[in-house]
């Protein structure tokens, strides 16, 4: 599983961080950081983050 974020589409709403704090975070510089290859056990959290993104910028690739 791979988490892809289209940073051209991302408008930094921050919903992914609320939905999946173990996978997404903002760094001190304000940029979004995420776990690119999460464990299979984190799939649900990753999908939740993708679902709540208002810009639908997060795609889970298998």
């Amino acid at each position: 599983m791979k988490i892809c974020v289209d940073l051209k589409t991302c408008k930094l709403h921050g919903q992914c961080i609320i939905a999946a704090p173990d996978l997404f975070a903002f760094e001190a510089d304000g940029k979004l950081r995420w776990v690119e290859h999460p464990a299979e056990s984190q799939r649900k959290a990753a999908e939740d983050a993708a679902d709540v993104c208002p810009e639908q910028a997060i795609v889970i690739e298998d």
Partner: protein
Amino acid sequence: MAGGVLIVGASLGGLRLAEQLRAADYAGPITIVGAERHKPYNRPPLSKDVLLDVPADEKVHDIEPGQLAFGIRPSLADVTWLLGQPAVSADLNKQIVTLADGCTLNYDGLGIATGLTPRRLPFSGGEADRHVVRTIDDAVRLRQALSPGARVVVAGGGFVGCEVAASATKRGCSVTVVEPLPAPMCRSIGQELAVAIQTYHEANGVQFRLGTTISNIACEHLGERRLRSVALSDDTELPADVLIEATGSTCNAGWLNGNGLDLTDGVLTDDAMRAGGTEHVVAVGDVARFPNSRYGAVARRVEHWAIPGLTAKRAAASLAASLLGRAPDLSAFNPIPTFWSDQFGIRLQSMGMPGLADRTELIEGSLSAIGEANGPGLAIGYWRGEALAGVVTIGLPVARLSQYRAMLD
């Protein structure tokens, strides 16, 4: 035909319900019926980006949702889509739904996700210049009307009205918002913040006629389709080339009449999103009126973007439990609603239910700094009695949202 799960409504709520049914181990047939001809797409950009991006070679009747379309998960590859066919009636005893073309579908489980229809002003005439913004087709039609210099009247100063007003102003239109309340958006965010945002809108060129309603519309000749002006309740008149009606919505629940459901304001459900006391009928999204134990026993509809996803997850657990013979999820259902609104480059972010508050207080920042580049931003707390019911922020670093959200939990 059909059988299995029938989902009526092919927008965000219907899509998420189908996804979550699969995630909850329901592997049977799923049919999704939609009134629009499009597969599910994201609606928030319709009042913003879609109105601003004008492709050079736009064809009026040939627009697909394109990049607005939601991705369809592999788990939904076998879903049957019946699009462009609204449901017109249902018999919940016989477990049958009838579509506009007369086709009937039976089901084992029913998902109600039919959403809203914009309310129209109760006047006839001027139809060619009157608009609403709910569907991609609406937005494309409006985009073509927003030519620079056009005189635009927006009926309703809620979030949709204010977003559309900002977009139309950016397109070079001359925009006036007519709102019956003393400030725009004030029912949702309170007067203090509402006035500050109004000031920011005015600095960007939007005009407001507050405490005022539209009392009539005038065309060049009686019964004509072209608009000339709108008459206001204070006996003044506004010349208008375009009228955008953003005065709220009504629920698409009429097709469920005659089944003993409480359809007073949308479809009443229990806190497992089940309607009418049945285990195999659920409702999700804008049309669902559900109790949220975080905010008392009163059932409410919540027209926020996050609600279809949150209610779909709960509804899918209920429906899957019923269909697969499992025990239902009886844990508390108390989601924290969130929404955002982009207007002239500022982003307002709301968490919780600020509209329920009896008292507001600026927690940090400054109301007069709205829109200032590198300004301090602001956060306003909304208290209901002793409890913090909601927080609205503008221009704060996003990392701070989690902190405020934690205060609401």
